[in-house]
């Protein structure tokens, strides 16, 4: 394997991942030796408003996909309103391709716990919840252990470090529903209901958990708080681009030599990431990829030099999302890939709104027909028409996300569809019972 060039290596910015190499960083003693809880001591001496301002100054944007400015979100919480405030961490990592929060919580859980305490102090919350994906059992083990250690050391509970500040933190396991990664569905689930999204407004900032002001942040966002508190906003902004500051964990998977987690300065390109990851596997040529999970429109080989920050990816017609970079080659079929993603959205649609529930159901069937070699040219119009009726018309972003791979694969790889329809590609599925009228 050839060594990446120095200028490419310089894109690496180990900040959130830096403790992962210490095998015991999940224990509080080791964590404390590695800057652990130093940020908390520092933060508790500052005024909460100054912490909110610090996060605003850092330009930190949400790491869960939408990229909303974190400091702004914290600032939305009305203060002095006499209501309890809540911090809820969205640890329901489930976007296909995304695998950055689980390792963080498994190997450095105290980073999240410390971030939770600081963020809760800033927004004046006395209760916080980490809603962790049910299947993430090992991360939850480590996280529950970390929370217990933090209680034992006086970092959680009453009168934290004798500051007079109290915080209770509960780790709450979900039960296997992708939709609970949507923040309002997550709140409903945390309240003990089916995880279905809520109408907004009112927004969680005023009517979140238990109808009280609530901040919902992703794991990576909250874990970014301690390093910002320590190193300052200017240091944080020395990484990334002007509007997308800081480091980001890029999760590379697929047909590459060294798949894995690469924490880089935001704005790194796929070409550079591939260089870091040892390039494509022998015999594979890059054909299509997702910049941020399956809900972001596919990009193609022509997008190798798109800067992977919020603005750069949007300008290329996709979305940065969770920086889950799934890389597919000329040996993978974009039609089949899209079909599998649609099966996922069909399965995970919560059923609350018609466009998503019905649209995905039917699109899956159209794909099966195409992949069974029995598709028609009209099917392609039907797919686009269905997407038109889902995108922007479904209750939450899940429906929108489902259309991403359909419309983008039809845009870049229509010939692949036609090859199935016109019999040049051998059928990939043998479906005997085909549905639909034509």
């Amino acid at each position: 394997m050839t060594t990446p060039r120095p200028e490419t290596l310089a894109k690496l910015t180990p900040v959130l991942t830096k403790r992962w190499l210490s095998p015991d960083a999940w224990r509080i003693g080791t964590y404390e030796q590695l800057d652990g809880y130093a940020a908390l001591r520092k933060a508790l001496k500052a005024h909460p408003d100054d912490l909110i301002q610090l996060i605003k100054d850092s330009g930190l944007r949400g790491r869960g996909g939408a990229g909303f400015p974190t400091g702004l979100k914290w600032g939305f919480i009305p203060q002095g309103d006499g209501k309890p405030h809540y911090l809820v961490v969205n640890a329901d990592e489930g976007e296909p391709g995304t695998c950055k929060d689980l390792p963080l919580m498994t190997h450095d859980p105290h980073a999240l716990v410390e971030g939770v305490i600081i963020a809760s102090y800033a927004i004046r919350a006395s209760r916080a919840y980490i809603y962790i994906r049910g299947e993430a059992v090992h991360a939850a083990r480590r996280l529950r252990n970390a929370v217990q250690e933090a209680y034992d050391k006086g970092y959680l509970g009453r009168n934290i470090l004798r500051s007079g500040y109290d915080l209770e933190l509960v780790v709450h396991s979900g039960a296997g529903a992708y939709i609970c990664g949507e923040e309002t569905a997550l709140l409903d689930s945390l309240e003990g209901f089916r995880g279905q999204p809520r109408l907004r407004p009112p927004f969680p900032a005023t009517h979140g958990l238990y109808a009280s002001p609530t901040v919902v942040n992703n794991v990576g966002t909250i874990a970014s708080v301690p390093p910002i508190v320590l190193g300052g906003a200017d240091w944080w902004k020395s990484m990334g681009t002007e509007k997308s500051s800081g480091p980001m964990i890029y999760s590379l998977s697929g047909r590459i030599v060294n798949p894995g987690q690469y924490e880089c300065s935001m704005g790194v390109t796929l070409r550079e990431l591939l260089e870091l990851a040892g390039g494509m596997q022998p015999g594979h040529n890059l054909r299509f990829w997702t910049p941020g999970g399956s809900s972001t429109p596919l990009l193609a080989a022509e997008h190798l030099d798109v800067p992977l920050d919020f603005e750069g990816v949007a300008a290329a017609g996709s979305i940065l999302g969770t920086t889950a970079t799934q890389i597919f080659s000329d040996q993978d079929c974009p039609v089949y890939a899209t079909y599998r993603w649609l099966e996922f959205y069909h399965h995970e649609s919560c059923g609350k709104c018609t466009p998503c529930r019905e649209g995905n159901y039917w699109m899956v069937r159209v794909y099966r027909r195409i992949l069974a070699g029995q598709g028609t040219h009209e099917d392609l119009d039907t797919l686009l028409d269905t997407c038109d009726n889902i995108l922007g018309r479904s209750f939450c972003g899940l429906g929108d996300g489902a259309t991403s791979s359909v419309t983008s694969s039809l845009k870049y790889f229509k010939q692949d569809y036609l090859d199935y329809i016109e019999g040049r590609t051998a059928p990939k599925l043998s479906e005997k019972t085909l549905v639909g009228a034509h």
Partner: protein
Amino acid sequence: MTTTFTDETRERAREIIARYPADRSRSALLPLLHLVQAEEGYVSPAGVAFCAEVLGLNKAQVGAVATFYTMYKRKPTGDFLVSVCTNTMCNVLGGQEVYDTLAEHLGVGHDETTADGKITLEHAECLAACDYGPVMTVNYDFFDGVDASTAVGVVDELRAGGRPMPTRGARLCTLKEMAVQLAGFADEREGAVADGGPGEPTLRGLRLAQQHGVSVPGFDPNTPIRSKAEADKAAAKAKAAEAAAKPVEAPAAQVGPVKGGDGASAPTGTPRVGEPAAATGSTAPDVKAPDDKSPQVRTAETRQPDAATPAPDAPGTKVPAETSPPAPRDAQEAEAAGVAANEPAGDGKPAGDTTGAQERNLNEASASAGGANSAGASETGAQK
């Protein structure tokens, strides 16, 4: 109706409920459903009744929740739940073949259990380990980079009474034992929390940085946190000095955070949060996007108006305090304007799901003649 649950389970149920605020015990429902699975291996009618009883809900309310989530099983399960990821990435890397082989080898299909009661097989959606693909889990602990033959090896060992060690994660326990942990209790097994170091893919970027001595320069953990109080003092001083010279109002904003404009306490500061207003869900006309923008991007921006716009108060942006009402007020206004009919969730039911909420919305929309806004708001919301 009496249930069969043990005293230990009842005691645990009390502990679970105590984690949540006193008047919000329903939050305990998900962990309680895990708890009843820990005793019975699935959510049985008795389990539903138990949850209903301890939370003061009716069985239909509990059943509605239990049937929504994939991890609550509705039939008895085996000791080991084998889940094979067949989502796109694992699928193309060989996950489908692993699943098909296991199904044939075990003679069961999705969500079915072998006759000896050992193994329940399922195909799973993305398990968040794509850099290790194709993956499968046993009772949710990872076996990475499997192929058909290693997967068959694992299930054979399980059926023979062995406990193969996961590639990452703790040594295996039974599915019922795992459900206790899912209900929020610590893994009591000696050393289990320490099991499972990071695999190579997790560390790759980090190792590369370490090998080549790459780190982020300029990190000083003692960087002071700027204090607004002090900045204000400085600003006041500057202003006084300025006033002495010539009355101009600008510099205050420059020195420190916008006065009163942090949005945290006083409703003044943040710019075009635009947020509540724009994000009512209207996909509509007010978003002007260049034609080459993909519809997905446009929709995402509409849902999250700031997703692609710069952080409004991005560092260095000076913000005139007047032009920038912060969200809380906007949200309140929007609410006052008519969305309020939608009883906020948390008061017992999810937003919009209260009986008659829709009806009330409709009535209110048509009743408030001047409420074009309010009608618009609930309408777009509803459609969206």
